[in-house]
């Protein structure tokens, strides 16, 4: 039986403001609040809310509709602040049990290529956030823009994820079909779901220009060869409403899908269900990172030119990452998340295909780069100011472990002190009672007290 796996990405970057050279060292707020509020509210109004409302209806109708989402941490923060009704809708969807939430790096950044430690930390943080919001601990992971390579897969497997979703790029699939489950070439515990970019782009890119009906679409899926049972349709949620405006009738198409699918014996399934049901047919070799962006399906739209690579190298400098992970400064950590978002790098692309690319507040790639580097210049200075430049990351970690250990030791001691104190009080109470029984003058217990305390201290000191 063929199963359709629907997955939607929910991500909005936090826009950076025009940050001048003269602000360096003086202004540590980097964001364009107006643009952020406008962008997220417009997106919610035109896409997220209508699309999620439709899905909630579909899930409640009980036609076997299932869907998966992942939210980037920055998107959650923005939604919580500016459009909490979207979070409400997602929570209602989560209650229907038709929805699975996936893990992804919190910042929607390139940490998977830049720094493994930071990548792990981000994924875990985002998974925790998913649990807090929706009561599900993600078992399947997706990287920012579906960046995937063998190494990233191995890291995810090591973190305990059962599956990961990746781009079904022609150059890694070769003659193979994306309609099977594969496994990571470096660690076969991790199953891979490959995106079918033809069927996905039929909706997200081409629906307006080449309209199709849900019947035709399901016919195509039903007409796939025997054995090709996993159809992965992954896209951004903004495909419903922004890439394809609501006036194209995309939501009507979408609402008709479950009925049409059922008529042809097709099922919906979440990534976890697919991974549980289907065994991996073969390992999937992928030496260089693939992604779902551009025709090349690689990382060239973020790291294609020298400017992007320079910004990337400065952002993921080992010393910098070590310091940020070690520090406890919440503002630095929040800024780090927002500066990492891959969109910042996308704005700097000079690829010919990017001629009409949306560049936010920037005029061109050079403008985006100089503005980002001004911000990064300030941010890196703040990070350097946290700890002396001479300290190596290892030393820093050692110091931190020492501090945590000391803290633990202290808490142990504190417990001991309070226990002893309790015992002492008991003892005193007893003595008092005895004294009362013997009906001796009231001054005596008071005189005894100072004598008892040094004794208790002595025992403490001994135990230390």
């Amino acid at each position: 039986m063929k199963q359709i796996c629907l997955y939607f990405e929910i991500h909005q970057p936090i826009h950076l403001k025009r940050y001048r050279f003269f602000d360096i060292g003086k202004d540590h707020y980097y964001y364009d609040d107006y643009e952020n509020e406008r962008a997220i509210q417009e997106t919610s109004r035109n896409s997220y809310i209508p699309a999620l409302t439709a899905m909630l209806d579909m899930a409640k109708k009980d036609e076997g509709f299932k869907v998966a989402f992942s939210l980037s941490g920055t998107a959650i923060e923005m939604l919580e602040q500016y459009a909490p009704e979207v979070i409400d809708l997602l929570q209602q969807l989560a209650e229907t049990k038709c929805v699975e939430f996936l893990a992804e790096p919190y910042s929607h950044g390139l940490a998977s290529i830049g720094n493994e430690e930071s990548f792990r930390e981000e994924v875990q943080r985002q998974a925790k956030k998913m649990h807090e919001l929706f009561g599900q601990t993600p078992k399947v992971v997706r990287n920012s823009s579906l960046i995937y390579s063998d190494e990233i897969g191995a890291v995810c497997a090591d973190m305990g994820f059962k599956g990961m979703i990746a781009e079904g790029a022609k150059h890694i699939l070769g003659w193979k079909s994306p309609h099977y489950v594969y496994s990571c070439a470096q660690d076969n515990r991790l199953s891979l779901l490959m995106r079918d970019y033809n069927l996905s782009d039929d909706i997200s890119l081409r629906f307006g220009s080449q309209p199709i009906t849900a019947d035709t679409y399901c016919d195509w899926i039903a007409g796939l060869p025997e054995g090709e049972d996993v159809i992965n349709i992954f896209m951004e949620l903004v495909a419903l409403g922004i890439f394809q405006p609501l006036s194209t009738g995309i939501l009507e198409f979408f609402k008709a899908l479950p009925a049409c699918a059922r008529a042809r014996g097709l099922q919906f399934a979440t990534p976890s269900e697919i991974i549980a049901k289907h065994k991996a047919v073969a390992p999937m070799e992928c030496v260089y990172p693939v992604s779902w962006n551009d025709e090349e399906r690689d990382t060239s739209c973020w790291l294609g030119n020298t400017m992007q690579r320079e910004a990337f190298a400065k952002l993921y400098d080992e010393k910098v990452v070590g310091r940020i992970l070690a520090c406890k400064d919440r503002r630095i950590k929040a800024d780090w998340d927002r500066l990492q978002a891959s969109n910042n790098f996308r704005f700097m692309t000079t690829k010919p295909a990017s001629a009409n690319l949306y560049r936010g507040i920037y005029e061109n790639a050079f403008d985006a780069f100089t503005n980002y580097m001004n911000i990064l210049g300030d941010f890196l200075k703040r990070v350097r100011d946290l700890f002396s430049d001479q300290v190596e990351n290892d030393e820093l970690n050692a110091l931190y472990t020492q501090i945590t250990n000391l803290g633990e030791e202290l808490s142990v001691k504190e417990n001991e002190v309070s226990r002893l104190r309790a015992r002492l009080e008991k003892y005193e109470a007893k003595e008092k009672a005895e004294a009362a029984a013997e009906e001796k003058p009231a001054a005596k217990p008071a005189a005894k007290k100072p004598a008892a305390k040094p004794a208790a201290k002595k025992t403490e000191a001994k135990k230390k």
Partner: protein
Amino acid sequence: MKVLMFGWEFPPKIYGGLAVASYGITKGLSLQGDVQTTFCLPKPTGEEEKFLNIINMSQVPVVWRDKNYDDIRDRFVGHTAVDYYRFRDHLYADFNYLQGLDDLGCIQFAGGYPGNLHEEINNFSIIAGVLARSEDFDLIHAHDWLTYPAGVHAKMVSGKPLCIHVHATDFDRSRGKVNPTVYGIEKNGMDHADCIMCVSELTRQTVINQYHQDPKKCVAMHNAVYPLSEEYQAIVPNKTPDEKVVTFLGRITMQKGPEYFVEAAAKVLQRTHNIRFCMAGSGDMMNAMIRMAAERGIADRFHFPGFRLGAFRHRSSGGHAVRLSVYHLQAVGLRRDSEQRHQSGLLGYRRYGGRHLQHLHQRQSLSVSF
């Protein structure tokens, strides 16, 4: 003495250093008291200072048109309608074949440095013929190669001595790979000139050696300096205690050698970290410089704040200024260099020895040789 001066730029509309230099020399002459300057500009804005007569070359007729005074009275910027009739009485040839004549019989200029610059230069010299016939003057003064043909033409017509002012030669602008057309215009202007004023000794040597001029008629005439205005002096430097700022001030173009600045910055940043470099201004090499800073891996300490605003505010961040030309440091930038000197140290770098740093404050100057 009456001077007929041809220029291409004049404040408040500033494209480059030429405007400021033209302003400086005319202002200086006006303070002499007995010098009257008539300044010919392709396209004045009408907001120029009034100490000299501005002639708007876009409104000097080269073709006779029948116009009623009352109809055109209010249309003139720079000179007046009365001047217009005087000019119209001195037409010297039939220029009806020219493209772009307006109803007054004038040729329009775009202003600045448009794509058809050579055509505009030619038109400029055609109009100069009319002026030379209608104006009364003792001396012709032409600024830079754009106006040399006009100066030569005026000299041919009037027989008055021609003084040309060499702010830069094409050897400086192109680092030796001259544009033959531009070189031809420059050489022709110098050949006809009775006096060649060069802005530096280095430029004078270039004129003598590359343009084969008689050293006797070449003089080095350095640009002068204004003390900083009170408005600038009132700014309290707002220094960041732990970081120094080194600024490049100028157009980001080949003539100024911005790539040397980037290389120098990369060398400095290999050794120390508490310095930021700032390339203020804009220009045709800006994007290349952004890429270059990225390639050298110094982009987090090398910033591009953009045009003008940067130059102004740099003073308030109180760092060092680097103002330079590859060939002749003081020739182009002296005025602002010396202003900078009032507030901060100054660095330059040079490729050729010579006296070109002579005007800089010795204790505070530093030069990087390549």
